[in-house]
């Protein structure tokens, strides 16, 4: 649309392009001052060169054509020499970049050259940013971005003004019109004239706004796993889905939807020690009140749950097994503040210091807050607690039947409706607990529960008065893990066995691509623990699991084979795990190793080049040191002269490589005729025949041999004088 506003002419656009490109190069080269690469003198010279060419756009046309021809070979030679001499790759690449920018800065640029300087400049800016990590870098990248955007816009407008033609190459040695008439004052006046200030102000405001918003987001969002930090999903109404819960409430159960989202991934240092069915313990629910289980407040006390600490690692007093494998957990956000564990361990490490509490008696690790991002922690020397979680504190109290400071013995039924206890006692009598130990009771109770109830994610609790869990136990309704575990605990307590519900995750799959456990929300599970006084430990009992003796349970590779997942979701999840493995770092050692490896590679590349050149030099030296005679000296002189002549011919354009290639393809008669045409000026009949051989139809050729014989016999006076005027062919 033609707005009728004045516009910059093509020449003015070219001048603006030159200005922006120069500023961009100066900005980029200036960053080298912040790098410790020992290139201060080169940087100053390069900036001076670019500055002078920027101020006087006509100057680059004075650079002779041979200098342009030599520029890139010379820069390449400099780079190789630099690499050889210094033996450092990065400084050599930085200096190479400076030289390339300098060359682009002091020669007239086509459009592709402008794009090249953006890339070259970006490289310097980014390298400087990575090496220095300072606020100055942020400022520089902002100015660079604005300049680069401006340059690209002007390049595009120029292209459009030129009618969208293909990139035009600047002709060497010729001052373009825009450079010949460059007038910075005029350009400034024209810019003021054509600028739509409201638009400029809007663009500036938009730029500042976007930068400010980006800065705020940068400050507000934790530094990794952006997707885990997005809080918008929390505004979406949630449905009852499978997943971990740190309390259980019966009676308001509705249908639960399977949620196959990943809860956590686990790397295992020694897959041979993989358990068949890992039970990832997270929280113990010991108090049953008002138809629900939760962790009682005495259990949350520092005596049991431990004092809050702030540390990046934790070594418990009750150690795990030293030879046990190391497990690295990547717990997704929104799962829980309780960390999944298999049992006791030797040491637990976080990436950064965390506020946490650990209870060796309960085997629980709880963070102060539920993390908003993925939480990674490494647990060394952890083996599953089999046959149970030893608890010396509870063992002593159980022996003495001591109720200290209100800490429960986990026999409390807390059934407010009196008939419930009688109902429960009747049901327990059905199990036949008399005279049994905890393990035997558990076995019989499991069998009893499985006989009466099936499994369903859509359970139904019969209506009526009293406790909902007792009502469900008395019915034949199917139920899910929480109902089974809760029923088992009530039955055990009614029979006089301390028992509690444990919630966490069970099982998971073994990702065939990334080689790790993947545990999903649908693997959330509840089971029970019953006190085995004889062993002094809490025995795990899963009323829903089939009874399999420990000896028959698969372990290691066989266990993993049973859990193997080769689905597409596993393939996708493996990418996430690979990423976690890259970004999660517990002790900076891998980062140090990487830096050392890069430095070693850099050093060795320089050493290799140096050794190669030194070897070649010594061979040349040995060759020169060999015995010399007249014939050898003559041969060397001839080769040197030929090489010199060839170089001279190439540099002066007397031989064009492209022409050599083309002539090699041409007909030999035409090639020979062309050769003679370049050397002879007469006589006219001979020239006409040679022209016919060179450019005529082969069907009209005279005998080539005769023509070439005449050419060879042509008198010296007909020979062309080098550099003489061309012959008329009309």
């Amino acid at each position: 649309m033609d707005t009728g506003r004045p516009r910059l002419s093509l020449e003015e656009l070219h001048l603006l392009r030159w200005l922006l490109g120069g500023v961009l190069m100066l900005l980029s080269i200036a960053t080298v001052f912040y790098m410790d690469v020992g290139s201060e003198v080169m940087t100053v010279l390069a900036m001076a060169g670019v500055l002078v060419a920027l101020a006087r756009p006509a100057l680059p046309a004075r650079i002779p054509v041979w200098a342009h021809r030599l520029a890139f070979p010379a820069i390449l030679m400099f780079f190789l020499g630099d690499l050889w001499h210094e033996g450092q790759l990065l400084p050599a690449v930085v200096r190479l970049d400076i030289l390339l920018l300098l060359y682009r800065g002091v020669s007239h640029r086509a459009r592709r050259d402008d794009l090249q300087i953006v890339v070259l400049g970006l490289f310097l800016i980014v390298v400087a940013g990575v090496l220095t990590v300072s606020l100055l870098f942020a400022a520089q990248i902002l100015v660079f971005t604005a300049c680069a955007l401006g340059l690209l816009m002007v390049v595009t407008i120029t292209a459009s003004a030129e009618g969208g033609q293909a990139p035009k190459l600047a002709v060497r040695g010729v001052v373009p019109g825009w450079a010949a008439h460059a007038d910075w004052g005029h350009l400034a006046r024209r810019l003021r004239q054509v600028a739509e200030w409201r638009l400029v102000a809007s663009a500036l405001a938009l730029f500042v706004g976007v930068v400010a918003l980006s800065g705020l987001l940068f400050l507000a969002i934790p530094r990794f796993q952006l997707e885990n930090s997005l809080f918008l999903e929390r505004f979406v109404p949630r449905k009852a889905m499978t997943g971990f819960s740190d309390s259980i409430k019966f009676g308001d159960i509705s249908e639960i939807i399977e949620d196959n989202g990943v809860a956590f991934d686990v790397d295992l240092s020694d897959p041979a020690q993989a358990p068949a069915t890992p039970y990832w313990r997270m929280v113990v629910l010991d108090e049953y009140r008002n138809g629900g289980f939760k962790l009682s407040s005495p259990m949350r006390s520092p005596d049991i749950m431990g004092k809050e600490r702030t540390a990046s690692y934790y070594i418990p007093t009750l150690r795990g097994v030293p030879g046990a494998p190391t497990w690295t957990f990547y717990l997704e956000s929104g799962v829980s503040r309780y960390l999944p564990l298999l049992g006791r361990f030797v040491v637990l490490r976080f990436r950064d210091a965390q506020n946490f509490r650990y209870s060796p008696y309960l085997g629980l690790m709880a963070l102060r807050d539920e993390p908003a991002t993925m939480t990674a922690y490494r647990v060394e020397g952890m083996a599953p607690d089999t046959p149970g979680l030893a608890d010396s504190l509870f063992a002593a109290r159980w022996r003495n039947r001591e109720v200290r400071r209100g800490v429960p013995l986990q026999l409390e039924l807390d059934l407010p409706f009196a008939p419930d206890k009688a109902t429960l006692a009747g049901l327990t009598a059905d199990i036949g607990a008399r005279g049994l130990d905890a393990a035997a009771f558990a076995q019989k109770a499991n069998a009893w529960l499985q006989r009466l109830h099936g499994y369903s994610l859509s359970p139904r609790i019969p209506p009526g008065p009293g406790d909902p869990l007792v009502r469900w136990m008395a019915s034949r309704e199917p139920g899910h893990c929480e109902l089974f575990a809760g029923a088992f605990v009530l039955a055990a307590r009614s029979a006089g066995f301390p028992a509690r519900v444990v919630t966490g995750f069970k099982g998971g799959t073994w990702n065939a691509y990334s080689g790790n456990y993947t545990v999903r929300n649908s693997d959330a599970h509840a089971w029970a623990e019953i006190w085995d006084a004889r062993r002094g430990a809490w025995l795990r009992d899963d009323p829903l699991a089939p009874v399999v003796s420990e000896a028959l349970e698969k372990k290691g590779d066989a266990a993993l084979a049973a859990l193997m997942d080769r689905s597409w979701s596993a393939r996708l999840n493996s990418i996430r795990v690979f990423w976690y493995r890259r970004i999660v770092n517990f002790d900076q050692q891998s980062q140090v190793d990487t830096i050392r490896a890069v430095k070693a590679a850099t050093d060795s590349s320089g050493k290799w080049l140096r050794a190669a050149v030194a070897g070649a030099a010594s061979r040349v030296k040995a060759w020169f040191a060999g015995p010399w005679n007249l014939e050898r000296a003559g041969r060397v002189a001839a080769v040197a002269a030929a090489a010199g002549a060839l170089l001279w011919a190439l540099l002066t354009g007397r031989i064009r490589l492209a022409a050599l290639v083309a002539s090699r393809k041409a007909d030999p008669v035409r090639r020979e005729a062309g050769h003679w045409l370049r050397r002879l000026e007469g006589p006219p009949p001979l020239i006409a025949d040679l022209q016919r051989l060179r450019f005529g139809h082969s069907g009209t050729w005279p005998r080539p041999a005769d023509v070439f014989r005449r050419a060879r016999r042509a008198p010296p006076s007909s020979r062309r004088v080098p550099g003489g005027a061309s012959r008329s062919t009309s």
Partner: protein
Amino acid sequence: MSEFLQSERVGEAKATVERLRANMRRVIVGKDDVIDRLLICLAAAGHMLIEDLPGVGKTTLAYALARSTDCQFSRIQFTSDLLPSDVTGVAIYDESTREFVFKPGPVFSNIVLADEINRAPPKTQSALLEVMDRAKVTVDGEAHAVGSPFMVFATQNPIDYEGTFPLPESQMDRFLMRLRMGYPQHRDEIEILRTSRSGYDSMQIGAVASRAQVAAVQGLVCQVFVEESILDYILRIVAATRTETEFKAGASVRGGIALRTAAQARALVNGRDFVLPDDVAELVAPVLAHRLALSRQTGDALEERRAVGAHLKRILSALPPPT
């Protein structure tokens, strides 16, 4: 038919052109190079645009060519009120036959002088597009062939642009060459002053070649052999105009074809059945210059033509011819 030209036919063509050249030199004094290029244009069956000041012999040149080749000559004075039908002809109702009968316009001739073509509005200029391309005029859906040989000989004044309509690029592209007459040398002008009478009707010049002979020469041009390296040379020149920053747009594909045809015609006119690099180099400016415009605007048309010529010369000197 042989796939290359027989030397006898080349000789005949050369002889025809030589006769025309000699005949025209008798009446057009001191403009041998213009006559040569005009004959090349005629051999290539192209159209000619001549730019120069009034009174330097443009019309005389066209008339001399028509008379020398025994061709019918017509002249159209382009003005701002000229209508397309004034050029191409019109279908009129014939009472006696009760039918529309086509009445041919002045374009139905062999040599058509379009005098001051840029004074006509674009609609009328465009009326020439079809006839220059196909040598036919379509009126009421019926195509009418114009004379053979057919050549449009357009003139325009590069200085006086007041009240003119610059020819569109599509129209310019259809002219094979653009030439300038220029003032004659002093001694030539003395000779003109001594011998010439006013008005070209009084010109004493007879036909030295028949229309059939001219058509035969034109038929031979396309058979002149062009070696691969020459084609590559032409293409390199055309490509260089496309990458030259000083030009608004490079030469078109039609421009490249025109350069090849003109070079073939020059070879034939000079008695050769193959093209030399010089044939191409000599014709780059007259064939390509009018198809190119400077990327920066200049207020002066003459200055623009000089600049375009200089840039073409520079391009040509930077591109080594095949050897």
